[in-house]
């Protein structure tokens, strides 16, 4: 059972990747582009995301003993496969840097104003290294525990916010037609659905009962969609679109309104830990992805350290401040993500073509 994970852990990792990336820039970009129709964007993106799921299944089922880097080489040959792999790794590394920046900025801006961001980053970097050195088993178990905790905290927050919810805040619906929700859906698709592909780094034969993974993934995909949908609806329904679009972290600010049974209040900082768990897992998985795409030997301990240091240093020096980060992420990063999507689509198409050729040869 060494280096084996079960399908539940695998699917929970997908959910964590999808939901955690929504904090900060995910919510910001959807609200900025779709406004009050943000929840429609989430629905459209989720429907479009079915294509990602289907392509994922095709890529994942191909050569079950290979990870994504090996599949690139297997489909496109060594030179082109390596180039595509490195290109995707560069973009994924940037995803990790963004997540680390998001994490440290969120903590320094909301809780630890006087603490230097690098100190916070350092604490998380140690954990990221540790969990990566321990391997996929530890990573997946950690993820399942964190996901369960996050789901409970999410439920508490929704129950606590229910009395504050005002349906009128979600109106008018589609005031300017479908254009704005579609733009929002594109952002949501690129920022919050694309990370599904990161799971390709785990070879299919690393799963216990791999035949069940599709079912679990579909269930957790729906759960992730519901979480994001409820989150957006609740945030806008409680704060109203004007406040939701002016706050840096509306999904955190809305938690300040939680009041359960008139005596449980001011629990936003406890509830917020779900975001911190999510972002921590995101960074950890990015490090895992890059490590295992670069080196096939699973015993490498130095590589995760180096990658984590790059992410840590990058998050400290790449962006001057949050405004620069938001601007860059909103205007430039979608193109980077689109390239990443294109690379995986190439792989998907490559596999389809190869399968068809193989069929012809055998027939």
């Amino acid at each position, binding site marked *: 059972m060494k280096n084996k994970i079960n399908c539940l852990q695998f699917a929970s990792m997908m959910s964590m990747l999808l939901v955690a990336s929504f904090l900060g820039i995910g919510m910001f970009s959807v609200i900025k582009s779709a406004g009050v129709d943000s929840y429609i964007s989430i629905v459209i993106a989720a429907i479009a995301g079915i294509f990602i799921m289907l392509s994922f299944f095709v890529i994942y089922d191909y050569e079950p003993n290979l990870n994504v880097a090996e599949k690139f080489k297997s489909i496109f040959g060594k030179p082109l496969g390596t180039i595509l792999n490195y290109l995707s790794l560069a973009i994924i590394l940037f995803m990790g840097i963004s997540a680390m920046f998001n994490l440290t900025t969120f903590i320094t801006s909301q809780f630890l104003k006087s603490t230097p961001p690098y100190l916070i980053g350092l*604490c998380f970097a140690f954990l990221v290294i540790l969990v990566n050195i321990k391997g996929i088993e530890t990573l997946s178990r950690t993820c399942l525990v964190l996901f369960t905790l996050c789901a409970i905290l999410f439920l508490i927050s929704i129950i606590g916010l229910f009395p504050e919810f005002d349906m*009128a805040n979600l*109106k008018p619906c589609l005031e300017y037609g479908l254009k704005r929700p579609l733009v929002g859906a594109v952002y949501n698709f690129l920022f919050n659905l694309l990370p599904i592909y990161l799971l390709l780094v785990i070879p299919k034969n690393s799963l216990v009962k791999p035949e069940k993974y599709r079912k679990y993934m579909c269930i957790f995909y729906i759960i992730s969609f519901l979480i994001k949908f409820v989150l957006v609806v609740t945030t806008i329904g409680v704060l*109203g679109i004007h406040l939701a679009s002016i706050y840096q972290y509306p999904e955190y600010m809305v938690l300040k309104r939680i009041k359960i049974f008139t005596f449980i209040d001011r629990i936003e900082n406890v509830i917020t830990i779900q975001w911190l768990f999510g972002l921590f897992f995101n960074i950890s998985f990015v490090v895992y992805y890059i490590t295992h795409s670069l080196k096939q030997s699973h015993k490498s301990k130095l590589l995760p350290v180096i990658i984590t240091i790059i992410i840590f240093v990058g998050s400290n020096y790449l962006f001057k401040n949050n405004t620069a980060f938001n601007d860059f992420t909103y205007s430039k990063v979608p193109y980077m993500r689109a390239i990443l999507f294109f690379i995986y689509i190439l792989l998907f198409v490559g596999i389809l073509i190869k399968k068809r050729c193989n069929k012809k040869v055998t027939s």
Partner: protein
Amino acid sequence: MKKIKLLSFLLPLFFITGCFNYRELNELAITSAVGIDKTEDGYKTTIQIINTQKNGADTNSSMEQPKFVTYTSEDKNLQESLRRVILESSRRIYADHIQVLVIGEDLARDGIYDILDLFFRNSELRKQFQVVIARDTTAEDILKVVTPLETLNSKHIDEGLSVDNKYLGVGEVVDFEQLVASYLDSNKEIVLPSVTLKEKDEEGDNIENTESTEPAENVIESTMGVFKDDRLLDFLTEKESIALSFVRGKINNTVLSYECHDNKYVVSEIMNTKTDVSVESEPLKAKIKITGSLNINEVTCDLDLEDLKVVDEIESNLENELKNNINDTINTIRDEYNTDVFGFRDILYKSNPKYYREIADDWYDSVFKNMDIEIDVNFDFVEKGNSLKVIKR
């Protein structure tokens, strides 16, 4: 190798034993309320700080110290003005848990836009504190009064407004976040509750103020202030304030009466009220539907309360009383202030944005003033207390 590993995990424990840059409670001046007044050159800020010293602890005196102290300072902008308080205080000002923000009337009439940003931008400050206007006085004077019953003046204002909102409805509770949301939404107008001073001749800024059965000075809740954009236009009367709260759906319980005979009244408590406002387009018409239950509290006329017809009549008289009150209030606000504090514009925008865009530019010029209003009040009689009949010989 194992020892190195163990050491690398144990070593950080010595460095992470406490918070980075921590602030001890006894080094902070915990602020419970902030008041802002307009001056010629900028702002005068008054901050109310909780006095955490035990009585006579430092001075060996048995004299009772007030439970709070106030500091004032002036500067051209708010942040600098607030920071200058440090010159007077020996502790760092900690304003993250303020309960009340009091805005001076002069400042409110000049426009409150400039004071919103500082409080909104501060990430540590909770935005759920109440905002009130100091009516006919300054925020400084309001925050200096030592109030009876509550040891903290800010608590007195905070609790007082909540109780008023819960049982009378003259003042609506508006927290800072709601105020900013109303300001940001161009389809909404701001309303804020007010407090004022009820005073005798003496001054109430000393501890003796609480040693009398009738304090020399007290802070009392007053009526709602109505705004247009960010400027205070005026204050409503008590009746108008209650009517406004009814239309805005911010009232739960209140007392309503009508004159059944010369100087004789039927008084009733209205409970569990619900308001449903809709705006129909073409022809433009606002429909206000109010429902609730009523208890008869006081009857000084000779009425047969056992007769169902009489009870129905009381019901319909009270409904008409409220209907007329709301109608008068809407007309007064339309004619005198021309500000849509009822939120009709927002409701129309949300229900029919296309039609709204056609008439938006003329909203205050003609549409709001001339739109039809239909008011429907429906109270259900619940009980009449211990007495089945009116007390009479």
